[in-house]
């Protein structure tokens, strides 16, 4: 049962829902609740309550929840469902977010890939080191102690790891900003956690030769265009639009994934100063756009914002 199943919330539930679910679960499994009568013994209720507290300790915290989500995704379990029932034997097997399809309900572990077997998860698709937190896929007999280990791991090592990866990225982007060489055919991609990682174009398996896969689209590499993008210093609206079209990302898709309204996307791409969002939002939007287009976010944000500043002075 994963933490989302413990709290009985959807994996994409907003924080307030998680909080409410936690309070509800706490009431439900506290001692002397008549709803437990004849179903769960006192010990079982105590165990359930402990799981609820443990789940909320992770899901109630933004950063910890994020790294926990990553481990779930990494384990490749996000698309599968399993009605993991309560039982002392299997308190903490990390399974899947709940799926509404009844067909998949009550499917047991046999569909879940084993992370200890190389190739069963998509870890090695990324050349960046996998999170130090290996998903605690416990067999039904594994003691719950591992789960508490897992907590401390998330809070400590993983947060540091994430910070480290970010720094690494900034160094490399700084190198590029100063005119450092850009390896042919490489591209910045937005990973599942939106931490920009470097991935060689040859690494992915399912992408045809001469193509590069972005999270939103796969496009054919055009050396002339790549050179143009590499040399570009002014990232204005029309240029962003050009890159987006070159990389084959429809505006609808970009809007849907980045959660930026289409009006704002149009305004940004059209250099429409009067329709732009407030600067504080604009900065965030530009970061999102840059990530989705596989551009360097620092360059894009810096260049675009200074352009906006110049324009507003006139």
């Amino acid at each position, binding site marked *: 049962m994963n933490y989302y199943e413990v709290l009985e919330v959807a994996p994409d539930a907003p924080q307030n829902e998680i909080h409410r679910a936690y309070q509800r679960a706490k009431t439900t499994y506290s001692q002397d609740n008549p709803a437990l*009568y004849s179903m769960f013994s006192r010990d079982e209720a105590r165990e359930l309550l402990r799981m609820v507290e443990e789940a909320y300790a992770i899901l109630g915290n933004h950063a910890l929840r994020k790294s926990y989500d990553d481990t779930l995704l990494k384990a490749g379990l996000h698309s599968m469902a399993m009605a993991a029932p*309560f*039982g002392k034997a299997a308190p903490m097997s990390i399974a899947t977010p709940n799926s509404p399809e009844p067909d998949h309900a*009550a499917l*047991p572990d046999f569909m879940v890939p084993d992370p200890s077997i190389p190739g069963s998860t998509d870890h090695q698709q990324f050349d960046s080191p996998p999170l130090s937190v290996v998903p605690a896929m416990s067999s039904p007999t594994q003691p719950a102690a591992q789960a508490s280990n897992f907590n401390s791991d998330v809070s400590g090592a993983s947060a540091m790891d994430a910070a480290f990866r970010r720094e690494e990225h900034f160094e490399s982007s700084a190198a590029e900003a100063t005119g450092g060489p850009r390896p042919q055919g490489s591209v910045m991609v937005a990973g599942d956690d939106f931490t920009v990682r470097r991935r060689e174009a040859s690494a992915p398996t399912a992408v045809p030769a001469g193509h590069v896969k972005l999270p939103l689209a796969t496009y054919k590499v055009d050396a002339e265009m790549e050179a143009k993008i590499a040399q570009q210093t002014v990232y204005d609206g029309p240029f962003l639009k050009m890159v987006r079209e070159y990389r084959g990302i429809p505006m609808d898709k970009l809007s849907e994934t980045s959660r930026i309204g289409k009006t704002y996307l149009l305004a940004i791409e059209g250099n429409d100063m009067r329709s732009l969002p407030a600067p504080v939002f604009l900065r965030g939007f530009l970061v999102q756009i840059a990530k989705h287009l596989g551009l360097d976010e620092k360059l894009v944000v810096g260049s675009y914002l200074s352009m906006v500043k110049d324009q507003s002075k006139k």
Partner: protein
Amino acid sequence: MPNVVWAIGGGKGGIGKSFISSSLAICLTRMGKPVTLVDLDLGSANLHTCLGIKIPNQTLSDFVSGRVTDLNQIAANTEIAGLKFISGFNDALNIADMNRNAKGRLITALRGLSTPYVILDLGAGTSETTLDFFLAADQKIVAVTPEPTSIENAYRFMKSSFYRKLRQAESELGIQSLIEAAMDSRNQHGIRSPADLLRFIAQSNPEAGMRLAQKISDFQIQVLLNQVRTRQDIDLGHSMKSVCKKYFGIEANYLGYIDHDNAVWQSLRKRRPLVVEYPYSSIVGQFMQTTKNLLNPTALRAVI
């Protein structure tokens, strides 16, 4: 077009099953949907008293014994427009006396009733016949009051119907004895709840487990809390939903709650249905809302 059948059960007696059935039925007629209300509390039928009508001349025993072949003939009109009523047994026959053949015939006939909605008022207890009527319904409503006795019996009722459903699914799939085998050795496999059982079956026989899970996926219980007095009582519905999920591994719905209200016994003593006698009371509003939730499951959400 076959009609939609709602069944109201709950295990314990005196928790308001007949009252809830009659109120939901009248609410449906108020929304312009004709209903047949069937008293399946065989042996101690008293739904007619809730409705404030006389016992019709013909009852279910006429159908079961074969004196009447068309169930529609037994359905008596009532004073309430759109509401038909089929009375339970009023002679010596008991629900346990109904043989399998008659039960099957009755379930088929209930589906063939002329009204688009049929509401079954089930009796207390967990006899096989009661469970079969409950499982045959489209909406399986479990009534419960916030007393430990009622809660215990409601869970008992859910467990019994769940196992009966499992057995039905098993015999349909031709995979008998899996449950027996698992239950024989449940202690060494750590099987303590239906969820554990399903999991064990799926592990030992993945294909059968998958088909079984599919077969019982339509088993969804609607929990209706009756005689609610405090805020804690209301939360009980959420708790029961969660316990069902963790214990059975199935989704239960918290359908809603009905307040404890003096108007109920007052209307009962007058032998007039509450919905007719006090149409503007808050409790009737709660029944209306419950009916709407049942009619439109996609818009279903728990009341806070």
